[in-house]
């Protein structure tokens, strides 16, 4: 086969447009478009069945597409799947390891399959065991590993060739907080070495903590994209929430804040929480406190709230339904 032309150095790690994949009646990918700059961690968020795994499978050459083009590391996945496979590491949604073999045996076997000589495979395995804190468990069968260790070994296998692009499909699902943090550290370390990471997740705080940019996916489409901060800003800026013990007090608070010229003061009668925008952040907070003081009102609680990614996510995925 002719060597495919590799594109310029500044090319994105992943570039896909118009991707369509149908399963029976389900449109798993619906004219999907995504671009991931090289060297970044890209978070892919979406509810169950959004098509995250389907996208990962398509980009890692596992499934055929009905329409659209996808390039990974500058290579077309449909016309040059073999070349793409040399550039990627895939860590699928379920740990793809040999449970009977030891961790080291797994690494050596996969490294040999990747074309490494016996000696290189052994030293690469030892390197990776050390890098993923699995040296002590290296000889034990994988069936005795904890979920976190299994996931780290799984990622280590994906890293054998030091791929240009690493796909991680829900790497922390089912892990305890300790295991999750271990995996997060591994992912950060991988990205620091220059590998582009596409990470799907159900956990918004995970995307928030790790990802440079986030795509929110629903029904086979990307419905929002940006840095975590950008996405949160879309949802509205910081807010101040003042809670009152009674509805009457809450009304008094609302009146006090409105009378001093604040716009969009919202009162939730049910919870007794008064919310106002706070574009000025902490400065606005002290202004509110002063106003309440002047009006002689003692509030239950006053807090500056930033929108969370959860709110962004819920808002986006809900409005699409309507």
């Amino acid at each position, binding site marked *: 086969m002719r060597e495919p032309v590799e594109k310029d150095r500044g090319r994105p790690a992943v570039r896909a447009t118009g991707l369509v994949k149908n399963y029976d009646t389900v449109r798993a990918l619906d004219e999907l478009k995504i671009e991931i700059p090289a060297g970044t961690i890209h978070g892919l968020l979406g509810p169950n069945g959004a098509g995250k795994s389907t996208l990962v*499978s398509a980009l*890692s*050459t*596992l*499934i*055929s597409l009905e329409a659209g083009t996808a390039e990974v590391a500058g290579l077309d996945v449909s016309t040059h799947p*073999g070349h793409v*496979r*040399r550039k*990627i590491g*895939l860590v*699928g*949604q*379920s*740990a*793809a*390891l*040999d*449970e*009977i*073999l*030891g961790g080291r*045996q797994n690494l050596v*076997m*996969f490294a*040999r*399959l*990747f*074309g490494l000589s016996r000696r290189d495979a052994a030293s690469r395995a030892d390197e990776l065991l050390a890098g993923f804190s699995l040296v002590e468990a290296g000889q034990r*069968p994988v069936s005795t590993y904890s979920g976190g260790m299994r996931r780290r070994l799984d990622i280590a*296998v994906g890293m054998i060739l030091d791929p240009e692009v690493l796909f991680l499909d829900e790497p922390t699902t089912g892990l305890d907080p300790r295991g999750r943090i271990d995996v997060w550290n591994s992912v950060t370390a991988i990205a620091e070495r220059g590998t582009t990471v596409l990470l799907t997740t159900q956990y918004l705080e995970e995307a928030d903590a790790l990802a440079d940019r986030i795509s929110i996916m629903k029904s086979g489409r990307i419905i929002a994209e940006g840095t975590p901060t950008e996405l949160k800003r879309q949802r509205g800026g910081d807010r101040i929430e003042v809670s009152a013990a009674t509805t009457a007090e809450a009304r008094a608070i609302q009146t006090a804040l409105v009378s001093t010229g604040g716009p969009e003061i919202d009162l939730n009668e049910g919870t007794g929480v008064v919310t106002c925008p706070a574009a000025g952040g902490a400065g606005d907070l002290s202004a509110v406190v002063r106003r309440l003081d002047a009006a002689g009102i003692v509030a239950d609680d006053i807090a500056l709230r930033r929108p969370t990614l959860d709110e962004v996510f819920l808002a986006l995925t809900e409005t699409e339904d309507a």
Partner: protein
Amino acid sequence: MSIIREGLILSRRDLAHWGRQPWTPIFNLLFTIMLLLVFAFIFGGSIELPGGGDYIHFLLPGMMTLAMMFGVETTMTTMANDAKKGITDRFRSMPISDASVSLGRAGADMISSTVEIIILLIGGLLLGWRATNSPLAGLLAVALLLWLRFAVLWIGICLGLTIGKHEGATVLVQVLVWPIGFLSNVFAAPEFMPNWLGAVASWNPISATATAVRELFGNPTGVTDGWLNDYSLLAAVAWPLAITAVFVPLSARAYRRLRR
């Protein structure tokens, strides 16, 4: 040839499994040996052969043939488990040849079946079975057994790749191998069966191999006339060839179809 290299690496994975869990293959062997003992001692006295002969001489080649045929289930299950656990998908995401995964499976299963044949031969010798022909004929008999194993291996790979995901379908195959295995001349001579049953049993590919292996070992075949008497060797080569010719392309197609 990278495809051979990859196949060998994958076959070695199974050998490493035996090193880690020697009990699994040992239990499989014990099961075959138990069947051998049950038929030799419990039914042996009551089963008569056309043309005479001691039952153990008739039984052992049949048991070996049956063991080869039951291999279809081992191959299918192993293949299906890898697919379920996502290991197959990982292989598919790696820069290896499409055929390597199946070749690795084939290599491992052929090695384990060779071991199985050797154990059964030893067990047979302990029970009084003897081969009376030349060593060369004996080797040819073993080759025919492995040839059958090689053929059903591709049925196993094909089934594992296609219906492996469906628990019910794999159980169905596991159940079906029994009547298919028993509807043959492995345990009893078709000539003493009801007419229609005897005809079905004679045409069973397993019967061809069993008869040819019996002849080559110099054991009683339980066949005194009919086409099987004359052409068992040819049939023992042709049946597996036909199966292989059908199921190798089907397996390749099933593997490619994982891309859907």
